[in-house]
């Protein structure tokens, strides 16, 4: 379960201010974050992933309170529990698809790269239709293929939480639904949690929970602003 309570966040030297009373996403469910651009959807995802820390409030992900954790502990927590999917795919251009999928293991010794992990990466790529493209570089893939490769990278370490920041923003309609289906299939099979920010209202029926930023209750002392 993801639980954010009384969270208050400001970027340094910026007018941006995010504050709300409470957000909860049940374990094994899919939540869609909607709201206008700049309202704080990406910031909220970064808070859940432990990339950003709020000035006040508590964030609990799968019963782990992120607040008391040090930077390195939060990084380790992120590596072991969070799968990140980006709108711009954020694949590493100089690595081929297989190396991109294995990248989370290679950039941190806390995740040892075993034969089993390599096998899992290949199986996942096969399931997502990338088995013939494993040795291609991202620039030689279509946008749909790039996003599937990025999803493989996010899912390969078997995260318990998927955080997806507008993952369908750069895709055509047929690919949009396919990508969402892949993510939903994963959380159903692995009993993981998905939090996905989107502008695309056509995708919303597939989600268990919709978090509309326009309807979030501000904390008593502040108001939601962008």
């Amino acid at each position, binding site marked *: 379960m993801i639980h954010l309570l009384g969270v208050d966040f400001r970027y340094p030297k910026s007018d941006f201010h995010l504050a709300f009373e409470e957000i909860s996403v049940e374990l094994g469910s899919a939540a869609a974050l909607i709201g206008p651009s700049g309202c704080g959807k990406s910031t909220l995802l970064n808070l859940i992933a432990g990339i950003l820390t709020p000035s006040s409030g508590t964030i609990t992900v799968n019963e782990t309170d992120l607040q008391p954790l040090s930077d390195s502990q939060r990084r380790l927590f992120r590596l072991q529990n969070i799968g990140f999917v980006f709108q711009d795919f954020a694949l590493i251009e100089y*690595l081929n698809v297989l190396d991109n999928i294995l990248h989370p293991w*290679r950039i941190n010794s806390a995740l040892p790269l075993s034969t089993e992990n390599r096998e899992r990466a290949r199986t996942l790529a096969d399931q997502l239709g990338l088995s013939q493209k494993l040795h291609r570089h991202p620039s030689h893939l279509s946008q749909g293929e790039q996003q599937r490769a990025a999803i493989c990278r996010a899912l390969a370490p078997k995260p318990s939480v998927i955080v997806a920041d507008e993952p369908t923003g750069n895709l055509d309609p047929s690919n949009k639904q396919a990508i969402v289906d892949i993510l939903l299939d994963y959380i159903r099979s692995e009993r993981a949690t998905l939090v996905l920010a989107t502008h695309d209202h056509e995708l919303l029926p597939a989600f268990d929970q919709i978090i509309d930023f326009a309807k979030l209750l501000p904390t008593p002392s502040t108001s939601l602003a962008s």
Partner: protein
Amino acid sequence: MVFLKNSFYIAARYLRFHRIRSAILIVALALILFVPVLVEQLVSKAESRLTARAKATPLLLGSPGSSLDLAMSSLYFVSKQPASITYGDTDNIDQSGLAYTIPLHTTWNSSGFRIVGTSLDYFDYRTLEIADGNPLFFLGDAVLGATVAKALLLKPGDSLISSPDNFIDIAGQYPLKMNVAGVLASTGTADDEAVFVDLQTAWIIAGLGHGHEDLAETDDASVILDHSEENITANAKLETFIEITPENMDSFHFHGNRKDFPVTAAIVVPNDEKSLAILLGRYQADDQPLQLIRPNLIVDELVNTIFRIRRILHAVVVIVALATLLTLALVFTLSLRLRDPELKTISRLGCSRPAMSGFILAEMILILAGSIALALILIALTHPLQPKLITLLLSS
């Protein structure tokens, strides 16, 4: 250990993907490493080659003028040829009983290599050994330095032709076909790049001696210009031999007094220190038509100049290296900026700052290792060319 392996794996992938940029970085760094090493090696070897040979040559007799030209042409067979002295000049020293002389005639070339006309004493004095074939024995024989034999693919029994002084001057010297009698063992000195002939052979090349059919027995009367009781004078129609063979060797002869024949210089080997001092005193007078020099003093001056040039070269190399390193640092910094999105991505994926620094460091190490490897290859490749480069360096 695993982290190190992964860092180098990622760094290698990055460098391979950006192979042109990586290659430029590696080549630039390799040149920074290679050029100073090459210069240092060349200068050091040139210096030791210069000094060793000069020290082994106590005195040189030659015509007045540039003592440096005299030393360079007599010791290393390079530089501008000084004016000739006569064989009689060297003979005078021999007759003095203070020293013996080894004449040198270094005017002619063959296939780009200097023909050194000298006496057999030269081979003993320089402790030159025959690696293949025989020493000089017959008129027209040539003994090749190791480099010459290798470059011209010649062996004993082959022949080579002296290069005419002037192709346009039809009255000039005829080329002489010389028989390769032997090949010297390599010494790493200028002797490797010389074609040794007997002094008389050098004079034949100079046109001071020649061979032709016996005029008293010729059937062709048209070659006789004048016929008296004592002399038979031939005209220009008379053909002279351009090759010395066992059959025509006896017909070769010299016109004029040998004491007047030219030599370029002579190595003078005094009997002792006292003889050396006496000889130097004799040839120190300003009105002397000859000069007697101590080559080691001349070469020491040259080496001092090389030292100064080396210091300047070092300064230039340091400045160029610094400029190149600054440029490389700029290239690296700019590439890091370009990689900002990638670094942000891996940070969000859970990569720590020290780990990111590790990837960059691994790239630097790989580039440096590649540069060192390339520099070593370049050094190894240029190593066999160094004697030639040193000769070029000295001759220029």
